[in-house]
């Protein structure tokens, strides 16, 4: 009776369009008894979410920020429409404390500490995972909030697949994409290409001028190309390599209320390449990985009328990353990892006195104990850095399955750090070369409840509590006319995350429901002065409450999904805040299959209620936005 009541309630809130099952698409929590893949670290006790490949495919023409924005634990900050710089942070820790990795390599900027997600198209990946614990032991610097992993997992079977895509949307938005994947069991190759542009000329309400106006100077165009090659050289030897190039040219629009006589532009280009060699000998996997990243950015501010350059800056970063990892399957229960990392970073920035470099070597040891109902791991890391003393870091986690895996308990703790960015250290006149890394501890505990697990009905809930301290937090402080970054504060990240996921398979319909409720109490705990007004204050741009509800219904070749999101107020200064806001998106999809050709059509309306809101103070986000997508797949 109780199950029926629950079913009726959940069915009531979904859109009533008749459909039958086509595909179950969902964001799922990793099955706790699944084998830990060689590219994954031991992370027992940590909340880990893997974005379903179907969701990734549905967002092939978008960026990672669009894909992840449906997950409310991610705090997204964007300067406007697509193409605008956007960053995300997990658990309120900040964008520089949320690491983005590509094939296991950190791609956050060494000058800013953040990753601009507008430079990350979804097209190049088929595996996106969020590690909410993201220990520094495994990932290195800047993981207090967690880690987002991006990968392409080769499809190890005979196949040949061509995908073509076209998107047309408001504000002059056009996206053209293509991907080709071919392979056998021993060789797989995939390439993807996406070119996009937008005028960004959306209408918004200017609350300074008290008038509705149109965004100007917001054009952008971008291009991204990826290649991935996988070769099974031998029964026990695999080679994998990848190349990723991105280019973006954008105009930076003025803030609300401003009509300046100058124009700002920015060009970004990024080249990334990696090579991985993996071998398996006698219960031991050995992986050697190396990567090279080369990033450029040019910024210019020009007086429009006289075409005079007011100011400009150039940034050139390189990273060289090397890893050797040995995983030994000691027994059926015990697995051990040993890893050595060697990294080199350099930055040549026009606002630095000269080229800056940093070297580091890290040694990681980890051991996992796993039986049917219980698993635990301990990891230890010692890093030697050319500039800092990094203490020994550790990570420990446990996971316990009870009631025949109906309830999974987990707990995890880790010691973390974040090195200052190059801008913090070397920005001419204002940088502080005496900064020390931020450091601290995070821990989380949670439980997943598999309430219903039948062929026709799956209901899973999850609750997580997390907490942590960031000591020696770096904040820029005014000192007369000059600003300097200093290690002056301590911040606490704290919150509760609730999740509920449901799949119902009816005769002709499949219903998916995702519900998430977050409470985040991350705040400053200490600053230089005990009377400082910031003490106890919520961290800027961190909402106290996030709620999302994402129902979907599929019927035969049709799918309708709805995305409801609510974010509570966010402070951007001590007494001033951005108001709470609610957005509603709807997407209708239809697929047609003719022999080996599948055609997907979809129409999406974002922000149906035309809500006026900002993610960053003074930068409006578009109101109602309509987008049409057309994708062809040839198998």
């Amino acid at each position, binding site marked *: 009776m109780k199950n029926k009541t629950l079913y009726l309630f959940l069915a009531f809130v979904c859109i009533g369009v008749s459909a039958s099952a086509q595909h179950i698409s969902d964001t799922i929590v990793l099955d706790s008894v699944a084998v830990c893949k060689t590219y994954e670290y031991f992370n027992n006790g940590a909340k880990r979410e893997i974005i379903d490949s179907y969701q990734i495919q549905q967002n092939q023409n978008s960026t990672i920020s669009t894909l992840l924005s449906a997950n409310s634990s991610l705090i997204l900050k964007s300067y406007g429409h697509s193409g605008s710089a956007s960053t995300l942070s997990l658990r309120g820790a900040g964008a520089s404390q949320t690491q983005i990795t590509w094939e296991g390599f950190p791609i956050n900027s060494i000058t800013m500490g953040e990753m601009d997600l507008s430079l990350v198209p979804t097209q190049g990946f088929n595996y996106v995972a969020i590690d909410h614990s993201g220990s520094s032991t495994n990932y290195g610097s800047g993981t207090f909030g967690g880690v987002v992993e991006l990968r392409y997992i080769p499809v190890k079977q005979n196949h040949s697949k061509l995908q073509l895509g076209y998107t047309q949307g408001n504000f002059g938005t056009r996206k053209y994409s293509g991907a080709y994947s071919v392979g056998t069991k021993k060789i797989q190759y995939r390439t993807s290409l996406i070119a996009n542009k937008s005028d960004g000329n959306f209408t918004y309400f200017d609350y300074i001028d008290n008038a509705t106006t149109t965004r100007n100077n917001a054009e952008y165009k971008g291009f991204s190309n990826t290649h991935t090659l996988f070769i099974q050289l031998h029964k026990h030897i695999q080679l994998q390599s990848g190349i990723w190039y991105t280019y973006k040219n954008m105009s930076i629009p003025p803030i609300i209320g401003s009509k300046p006589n100058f124009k700002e532009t920015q060009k970004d280009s990024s080249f990334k390449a990696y090579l991985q060699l993996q071998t398996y000998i006698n219960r031991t996997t050995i992986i050697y990985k190396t990567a090279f990243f080369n990033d450029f950015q040019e910024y210019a501010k020009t007086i429009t009328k006289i075409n005079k350059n007011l100011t400009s800056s150039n940034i050139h970063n390189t990273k060289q990353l090397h890893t050797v990892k040995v995983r030994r399957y000691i027994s059926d229960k015990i697995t051990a990892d040993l890893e050595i990392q060697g990294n080199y970073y350099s930055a040549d920035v026009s606002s*630095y006195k000269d080229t800056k470099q940093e070297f580091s070597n890290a040694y990681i040891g980890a051991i996992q104990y796993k039986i049917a109902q219980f698993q635990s791991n301990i990891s230890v890391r010692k890093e030697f850095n050319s500039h800092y003393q990094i203490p020994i870091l550790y990570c420990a986690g446990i996971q316990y399955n009870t009631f025949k895996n109906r309830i999974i308990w987990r707990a995890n703790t880790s010691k973390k750090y974040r090195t200052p960015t190059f801008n913090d250290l070397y920005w001419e006149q204002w940088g502080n070369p005496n900064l020390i890394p931020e450091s601290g501890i995070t821990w989380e505990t949670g439980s997943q409840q598999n309430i219903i697990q039948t062929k026709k009905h799956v209901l899973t809930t999850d609750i997580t509590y997390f907490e942590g301290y960031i000591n020696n937090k770096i904040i820029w402080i*005014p000192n*007369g006319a000059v600003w300097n970054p200093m290690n002056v504060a301590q911040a606490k990240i704290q919150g509760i995350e609730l999740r509920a996921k449901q799949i119902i398979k009816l005769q002709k319909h499949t219903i998916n429901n995702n519900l998430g409720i977050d409470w985040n109490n991350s705040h400053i705990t200490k600053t230089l002065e005990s009377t400082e007004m*910031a003490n106890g204050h919520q961290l800027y741009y961190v909402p106290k409450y996030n709620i999302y509800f994402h129902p979907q219904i599929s019927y035969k070749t049709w799918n309708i999904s709805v995305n409801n999101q609510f974010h509570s107020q966010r402070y*951007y*200064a001590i007494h001033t805040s951005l108001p709470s806001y609610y957005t509603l998106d709807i997407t209708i999809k239809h697929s047609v299959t003719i022999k080996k050709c599948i055609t997907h059509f979809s129409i999406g309306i974002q922000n149906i209620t035309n809500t006026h809101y900002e993610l960053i*103070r003074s930068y409006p986000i578009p109101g109602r936005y309509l987008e049409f997508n057309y994708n062809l797949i040839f198998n």
Partner: protein
Amino acid sequence: MNNFLLHTAALFISTLVLFSSCKEEPMPQPEPEPEPIPVIIDSLGYMKGIFVVCEGNFNGNDGSIYYINDTIQIANLYETANNNNQLGDIVQSMTIIDSTAYIAVNNSQKIEVVNAKTFKKIGTIKDLTFPRYVVKVSNDEIAVSNGDGYSNNYVYIINTNTFKKTDSIAVGAGPNKMLVNNNKIYVANMGGWSNDKTISVINTSTLQVIETIEVGDLPADMEFDNNGNLLVLCYGLTTYDQDWNATIVSNSKLVKVNTTTYAVTTIKNFDHQLANFSANGLAYNNGTIYYLDDAVYSISTTNATPTKLIDGYFYGIDINPTTKDIWVTSTSSTNSHKAIQYSPTGTKIKEYVTGFYPNAVVF
């Protein structure tokens, strides 16, 4: 099922307790209560008190005017008086002319005009690119300094009835502070994003530049002394090559300009560049000059040996013409910016937490 749920709750709560923090936490700051709309019944209205000009955070669109009188303080007077409408980005200055206040909002490229008694909005002066300061020219004209140093370096004459430009007078780079005396407008060309070392003198009848006076690099602030001479504080210039190697071209200096002959006399040559870079680092009262460096210093026009009066780094300094109290603005904290009242001898009287980056106090 009931046992299942009971065990679920019990195990979760015990794990939560095990991992919860035991550290003492400071009590979170209570949410500030909303500002009550004050009832001003005096005929002077808000003009009875004083105003603190708060620039706000750059690109934060949170510039404000903070109001203080004997009985109340209002954190954001413009918003309070105008249905929560916001001023804009970087409030550079406020000038009261005949019961009308002109608020120059630099990065929103406009001047908001309000009734100084009620602070209700009267209108907006637009078609500006970099407005800085306002002075009275005649009963229905004001002058606005505008210019970033590279372009649009003008003093605009604005009709106060139509709020439209009636003239544009080309001056030096980055026209900033202005003073009016004896039918002349003195314009400090502070350089903007470029640099300059001159004062432009404009005849208010002809609206022509009649003199350009070279005083020193980056003339920032000016005052008239008791004899009608113009005191100018110049911050000095540092240049950088492409490798950011600094060259100090000149140190700060304080000069006096004879407004009849335009002769320039140096009062003090500093052996360094002053720590303050704002356009409000100079004040004058009855023979005593005050300036901001790593403290508030005072010197006289006849004795250039400075006396340290108030220790600390400040952003702006003004003297209450009635009480002679010294008012300074402080931006040393990341979250609490203040206007601080001192007696003429440098004894602290009271401090007020204002909006961000208070740069001046208007009486």
